[in-house]
């Protein structure tokens, strides 16, 4: 098991720092580059939500990310001190309207489509969001081979 914690100021321009770490750890977990990219994307969306909807324009703070890689599994924990914001509720499935495609809620859709587990907990003054991605057993076997 390999684990690493990194803290960034809650600024949109800083999200890429976390994305790079997520991609590295996805590789350590044995994920292919496309799955690693998808995880980076999902974590980026979660961070955007924390910054834009959690802290908002009026507040400043940090996001602490702990990323853990084990064989075939990546776990990402994001903690912040913004007001309670829970992105763990799965968005309802929706039909795509070709004429008026929705532009809202895409971040949540991406998070829930990429990750196998999304769990939010409010601990004291902190939001703790846990995202977990597991490699499919068939992929694990082919990776081991």
């Amino acid at each position, binding site marked *: 098991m390999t684990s690493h914690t990194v803290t960034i100021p809650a600024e*949109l*321009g800083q*999200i*890429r720092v976390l*994305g790079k770490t997520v991609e590295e750890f996805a590789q350590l977990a044995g994920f292919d580059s*496309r799955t690693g*990219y*998808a995880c*980076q*994307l999902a974590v*980026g*969306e979660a961070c*955007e939500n924390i*910054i*834009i909807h959690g802290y908002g324009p009026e507040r400043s703070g940090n996001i602490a990310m702990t990323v853990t890689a084990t064989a075939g599994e990546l776990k990402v924990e994001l903690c912040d001190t913004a007001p309670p914001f829970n992105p763990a509720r799965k968005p309802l499935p929706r039909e*795509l309207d*070709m004429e*008026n*495609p929705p*532009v809202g809620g*895409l*971040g949540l*859709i*991406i998070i829930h*489509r*990429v990750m196998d587990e999304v769990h939010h907990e409010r601990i004291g003054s902190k939001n703790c969001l846990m995202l977990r991605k597991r490699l499919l057993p068939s992929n694990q076997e082919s990776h081991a081979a």
Partner: protein
Amino acid sequence: MEISQKEYKRVNVVTILGRIDSATAGEFETNLVELAERGRNNIVLDMSDVEFISSAGLRVLVTIRKAVQSAGGDLVLAEPSERVIDTLEIAGLDVLFTAHPDRETAIASF
């Protein structure tokens, strides 16, 4: 992110390099809105060197596509990178956009 533009008789080609995320989507949108406001509603986006696009970038694509289509034009993609294709598929928006294998084919589609 770097953006460059080339104007043809009927089409504008916008080439984007790097990341389109919440930190850069504003600049991306400004460039495309400026084209639409000048009545340049046939747009090819060369996305072959886009290394990352988040939902903020997708929102710009969807919004501008709608604006140019309602003015009689269209927005198509040229050689979208694997990461652009993956993001569109994950978000379920891949069916909205016509993707051409290269910019010449995309230009010729107008």
